[in-house]
């Protein structure tokens, strides 16, 4: 049986590669055109030195970190508990984690504002920020849960727990000395995906008038020509970095890598 590559296979790869690559190249080219007549990194310099950029980027960064912490602290014990004690709940939990797909971001924000309208949450800026973080956390659930759940599956969590218990370990020890270290890679996996999502998120942030990176990027396009492209390239590079780090860490530690779905 000849194992030569099919000509059609190369065709499809080539066509799609071109389709994927050209817009990226165009963005990059645009971003270099800030100075008339020459190609240079002026646009990058301009945008990185703007105080608004630093502010919005930092806010997004902070939001991402909070989201990751809350999400991880909610998901890991829950996933662990479900696998250990109530395996029957798994399909229910999976349904819950799929809710963000059923409720698009626009609808979610709409619902959040209308639902909490009288409660005072919507009156203060801290309250709105909390709502945004809450929304982000639920947005991250599908990815974090699936990642952690896969990780727990592969380490046969029930057997490990019973082994630890028979050796005299208490719950705290088990959770932090046995479970967490072994699903560390899954947690990191979920964390990076969450990071990429939050950093790039636009819809919720702009509808809630939060000055994070996404709305800032959009705003920039109404005033500048080349800087938005530069920022897009940076944002893309950041996402790529996250995914690359996930794969690197996953490969080095030998724990199973999870795909997005």
């Amino acid at each position, binding site marked *: 049986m000849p194992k030569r590559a099919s000509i059609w296979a*190369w065709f499809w790869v080539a066509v799609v590669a071109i389709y994927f690559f050209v817009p990226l190249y165009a963005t990059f080219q645009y971003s270099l055109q800030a100075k008339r007549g020459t190609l240079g990194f002026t646009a990058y310099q301009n945008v990185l030195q703007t105080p608004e950029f630093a502010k919005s980027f930092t806010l997004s960064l902070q939001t991402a970190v909070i989201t990751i912490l809350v999400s991880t602290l909610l998901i890991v014990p829950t996933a662990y508990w479900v696998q250990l004690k109530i395996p029957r709940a798994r399909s229910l939990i999976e349904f819950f984690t799929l809710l963000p797909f059923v409720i698009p971001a626009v609808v979610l924000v709409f619902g959040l504002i209308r639902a909490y309208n009288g409660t005072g949450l919507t009156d203060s800026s801290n309250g709105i920020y909390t709502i945004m973080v809450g929304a982000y956390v639920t947005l991250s659930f599908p990815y974090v849960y699936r990642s952690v759940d896969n990780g727990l599956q592969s380490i046969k969590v029930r057997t490990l727990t019973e082994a630890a218990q028979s050796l005299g370990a208490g719950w705290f020890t088990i959770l932090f000395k046995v479970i967490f270290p072994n699903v560390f890679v899954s947690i990191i996996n979920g964390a990076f995906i969450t990071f990429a999502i939050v950093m790039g998120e636009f819809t919720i942030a702009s509808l809630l008038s939060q000055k994070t990176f996404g709305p800032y990027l959009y705003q920039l396009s109404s005033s500048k020509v080349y800087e938005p492209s530069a920022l897009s390239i940076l944002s893309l590079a950041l996402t790529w970095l996250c995914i690359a780090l996930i794969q690197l860490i996953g490969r080095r530690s030998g724990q199973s890598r999870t795909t997005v779905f």
Partner: protein
Amino acid sequence: MAGLTTIEVSKIASPPNLRRRLTGWWSWNWLGILPFVLFIIAFQLFPALSIVIKTFQDLSGHFTLDNVNSLNTPLILGTYWSSIKLALFSAVGGALIGFFLAWAITLGHLPGWVRSAILSFSGVASNFGGVPLAFAFIATIGQVGILTVALKSVGIFLYPDFKLYSFTGLVIVYIYFQIPLMVLIMAPAFEGLRKEWQEASENLGASRYQYWRYVALPILLPSIAGTCALLFGNAFGAQATAYALVGGGGQYTVITLLVGSQFSSDTFNNPGIGNALAFGMIVVMVITIFIYSFFRRMSGRWLKVGGE
């Protein structure tokens, strides 16, 4: 563990049949997932439910179908239809191209690095959406995009017939994140096609065409259909990209933008209509998710076969 819980005691005390029925419905273990559930309720279910309820309530809180009825205008129905068309076209387009790409990298006998490169890129690209993606396409086929300019130099004028800020433009842009999603889901599905099936069919005398027609495609069909549903939902609910491209006003709009615009100004001077619009979206998404899970369950059942 501490002593017997009430359930365990009742298990011992009651006769076998009753025991079996009582067992498993409730145990205090369910409390362990309470924090998670509360969070979901607070930030997903409660908002969604409030939309649904408020859709059927008028300003004084009485039951009414007025809000739903007010959706029945050409503008609104037309917008829903635009969204559905856009989602459909980009889903089918992305699914088709993604299907062939997934086939190419799994069964096309390409060198290993091609497969890893495409899969990694797909992982990134499926998250690459919204504003940066819109900018990227503006830079490519916008009025002064580099492709537009390049084509102009060889005599092909994209404008004014083609507009990026239109249905066609959006489809082209949406496909950019639909294809990677399709590849990410279909590549494992292709790899799930066991080599023995192909060999068995060959052994029984089937040609390659017959193998694909009678065995491989039918097996893949649930995954394809389910993923199409997922892609549809993905595009239907997308807001950021559309906002960046056509959000400034103008004739073309999609339902997500319409709902979004309810925030800044009650465009229709009717607070209830926002709820109804959002409710309509939820209905579409729920149907989509049902279709998706139906197909996912079907493919899961079939692929559990075999002696290994």
